[in-house]
């Protein structure tokens, strides 16, 4: 079971109270960008085995979006943090590194 803590309202609940919003920290390539960048933005996702960053919405609770760092294999959640974040904050990276020393870092 995936258990998330919403950073907006502090509620800890299991997955069915939330709704997944796909990979986090995507860089948007809009009109005027070249085809390869646009294709990669639209269709290419990391889909890693292990540490992953995702968008989640607390859909049955406060309704807010937030970001989560979790392991796709064990469902362990390393941290949840505000959606208004362009890249994983340093404390989140530290939390992941302490539990997954072999992790290559956020790329």
């Amino acid at each position: 079971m995936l258990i998330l803590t919403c950073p907006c309202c502090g509620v800890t609940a299991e997955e069915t109270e939330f709704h997944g919003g796909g990979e986090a920290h995507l860089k948007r390539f809009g009109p005027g960008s070249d085809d390869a960048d646009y294709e990669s933005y639209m269709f290419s996702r990391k889909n890693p085995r292990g540490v992953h960053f995702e968008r989640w919405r607390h859909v049955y609770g406060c309704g807010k979006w937030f970001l989560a760092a979790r392991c796709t294999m064990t469902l362990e959640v390393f941290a949840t943090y505000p959606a208004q974040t362009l890249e994983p904050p340093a404390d989140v990276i530290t939390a992941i590194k302490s539990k997954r020393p072999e992790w290559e870092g956020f790329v």
Partner: protein
Amino acid sequence: MSEISVSALPAAQSEGFVRVTEAGLRGMITLRGDLASAAIAKAVQEITGAALPPMRRIVQAGENAVVWMSPDELLILCPHDQAPGMEAALRAALAGEFATVANVSDARAVFSLSGTAWRDALAKLCPVDFSTLGTGDIRRTRAAQVAAAILVTGPEEVDLICFRSVAQYMFDILSAAASAGSEPALYV
């Protein structure tokens, strides 16, 4: 247009190990805006008599209550016939502020659960550890397949607010979860 308001399931009631009652008409006003703003705190205090609630808490003031719904949303509870006046007063007090006020009284249904084992009944429907909830707490979650707000009004009393369109569904699942002889006895 008819001026007569009728609640979703008038007088619906079921007896089980917890009593489920449709609570009738309640005045409900949604106020959205920056809850850190002094203007909102002042308007709410003057018009409802209640201070702004801390995160996931309810502040009661006589017949009115102010409920924390999300980081930028409050639900103001009041007698049903006072809701239009209170809405107008809030709207006037917050003119020019970055805030919205809406009277949602007739968009919702309210059920009251009473009995010591209300946690056991709701635990069958909601993905929530109810031992963490005490009097004056609010928890928004889902009950089976629909959204619900659970307001803990006393040690043996809970109000549950849902959309009016799912009132019959909510009453049915609550009655089934509270039916006599089906106590899970999780919280004893």
